[in-house]
């Protein structure tokens, strides 16, 4: 059986003097939902466009199912795109928009009807067949754009920030629908987004990009729980970055004391990250062997489903005090001025590469 695995080998791209993609190597298996996540300017959209064929890489190859497609125009690649602006054809109704790709390929009329209707059912837009794009809502347009791309049964579907124009509630709903459609059609989805919540919600795999490079590549849990450097740690979720000095392979020294870590730092000084929700406020009677520190609550902010506390740990040996953000359940009430003990479990302390 033909495989639809995508391989990106050594792809580089510059616009003028600016290097937008520095040396991208990635292998994506058939059927995965992959997200390219990163801030604006990191190169994720450029990479997507290179895969689609709208840009040509300066170096490197794009290989699909073993065949090199780098030099094929978009019309010759079995890949379809959902554009950020949807790019629906305003002069055609919904049915003809969706049928466009099939008509280009000279598919027979009856088959076009069958496939378009089936796709409209899958994407939940059956009633809209005769409508013109101008009369559609944002969510409807998005579904039409999706249907228009998917009806061609591409080997890979590319999505360029497909949900960025929609409001929060609609976005959550459509994220679920996207995931469902992906599973149903068993197509590789590659999505570009700058919204980390979205990436974590829908993907099987997240590629975090920054400055033209893939910084981290892993499952959502992986990327969230074990960020590899400061950027990933702060870009995804909220993290406290502790500046540390290496003492030994299992101990580092911070401004407020020594921490036991489970991974040997590769640096003499560097960062260790710990997420807000992973710092534990000790209750009376709790005792831990290490990584326990005194702290004073400076401020608390109610966030609806949790409290965010700003805790200050006094500096040891004449160092400056450190402020950390700590998350607690809504029913754990602490007041500004309270003295608490904070416990940072070793497994949650992420030794970063920088």
């Amino acid at each position, binding site marked *: 059986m033909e495989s639809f695995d995508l391989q990106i080998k050594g792809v580089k791209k510059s616009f003028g003097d600016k290097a937008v993609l520095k040396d991208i190597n990635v292998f994506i298996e058939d059927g995965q939902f992959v997200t390219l996540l990163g801030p604006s300017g990191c190169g994720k959209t450029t990479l997507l466009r290179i895969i689609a064929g*709208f840009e040509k890489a300066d170096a490197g190859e794009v290989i699909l199912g073993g065949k090199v497609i780098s030099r094929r125009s978009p019309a010759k690649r079995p890949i379809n795109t959902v554009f950020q602006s949807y790019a629906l054809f305003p002069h055609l109704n919904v049915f003809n928009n969706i049928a466009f790709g099939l008509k280009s390929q000279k598919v027979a009329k009856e088959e076009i009807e069958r496939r378009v209707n089936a796709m409209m059912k899958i994407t939940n837009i059956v009633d809209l067949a005769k409508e013109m794009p101008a009369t559609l809502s944002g969510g409807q347009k998005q579904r039409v754009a999706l249907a228009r791309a998917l009806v061609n049964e591409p080997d890979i579907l590319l999505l360029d920030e497909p949900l960025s124009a929609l409001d929060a509630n609609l976005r959550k709903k459509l994220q679920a629908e996207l995931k469902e459609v992906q599973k149903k059609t068993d197509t590789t989805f590659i999505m570009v987004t700058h919204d980390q919540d979205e990436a974590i919600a829908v993907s099987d795999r997240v590629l975090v990009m920054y400055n033209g490079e893939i910084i981290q590549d892993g499952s959502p849990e992986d990327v969230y729980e074990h960020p590899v450097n400061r950027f990933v740690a702060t870009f995804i979720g909220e993290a406290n970055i502790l500046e540390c000095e290496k003492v030994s392979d299992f101990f580092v020294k911070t401004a407020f004391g020594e921490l036991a870590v489970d991974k040997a730092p590769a640096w003499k000084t560097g960062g260790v990250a710990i997420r807000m929700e992973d710092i534990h406020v000790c209750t009376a009677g709790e005792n831990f062997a290490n990584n326990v520190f005194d702290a004073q609550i400076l401020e608390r902010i109610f966030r609806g489903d949790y409290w965010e506390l700003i805790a200050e740990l006094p500096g040891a040996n004449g160092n400056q005090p450190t402020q950390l953000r700590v998350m607690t359940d809504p029913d754990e009430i602490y007041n500004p001025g309270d003295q608490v003990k904070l416990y940072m479990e070793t497994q949650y302390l992420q030794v970063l590469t920088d």
Partner: protein
Amino acid sequence: MASKTKIEVFEGKLTTRKRMRRFGLLLTTPGMLWLLVFLLLPTLFLIVMAFAQRGSYGTIDWSFSLDNLKKLVGFSSFGWSADNLLIIWRSLKIAVITTLLCLIIGLPMAFWIGAHKKNTATLLLALVMVPSCTNLVIRTYAWMLLLGAQMPPTWFARTLGIIGEAESLYPGTFAVYIGMVSCMLPFAVLPLYTSVERLDWGIVEAARDLYAKPIRTFYHGILSQMMPGIVASVVLTLVPTLGMYVVSDLLGGAKFILIGNLIQQQFFGTALDWPFGAMLGIVLIISSVISLIVFKKTGGKSFV
């Protein structure tokens, strides 16, 4: 120039810059060739001709001479007279005043049109353009009738004491301005309306929110945004008006000689001095070029 043959993607197609340009040449050559042969080259030809001389029997003597330039500023075989300069000055004055009037009337019109729903607004805009389908000469003639001695407007002006008992509005300066404005107004309104359509009313509200009085709101909120449109409107009105002479000829009577009349006389009148006519044309060329530069410098992108 290695970048010309590098394979890039244009419009979703893998091709080279060179090939794109070659096809582009195919598309643009017919139009550009036409403009080149019938507009650009003739203009150059005119500039050359301006420094030639009038030959005998209406032919052209192609020896280089600055005579026409001297004639332009008033020096002729009879000494110096300010006639030509006066004519240029008069043309400028009329053009500027007409443009101002068109702006003063056109701005409220543009806003008024923009205050309606999109469909109605397009309809109104088309209504503004329709009179241009009726020829200039006919419309001007209508003003000749309307402003004549026996008509209400003249009678009205007489009672108000604006003009004397024996006079009528036509022929006269007032009639000329009415005719000019009536003629140029559609072209002034079009770019103004385009600007109004694109207005971001949020900025106006922000100005109001920051306690600006109505005049300041108008200035900072609206006028600043409309600058490109206003400049476009001014340019589109001022320069063509410089060359207009038919309206003033018909409505102003014999004493209203403008650059256009002078040029016409050189080509069809008794003077038959094409080179001098060309020199006069250069005055117009210079004003066109200056206005285009001003337009571009103030950030204008397109007239439409």
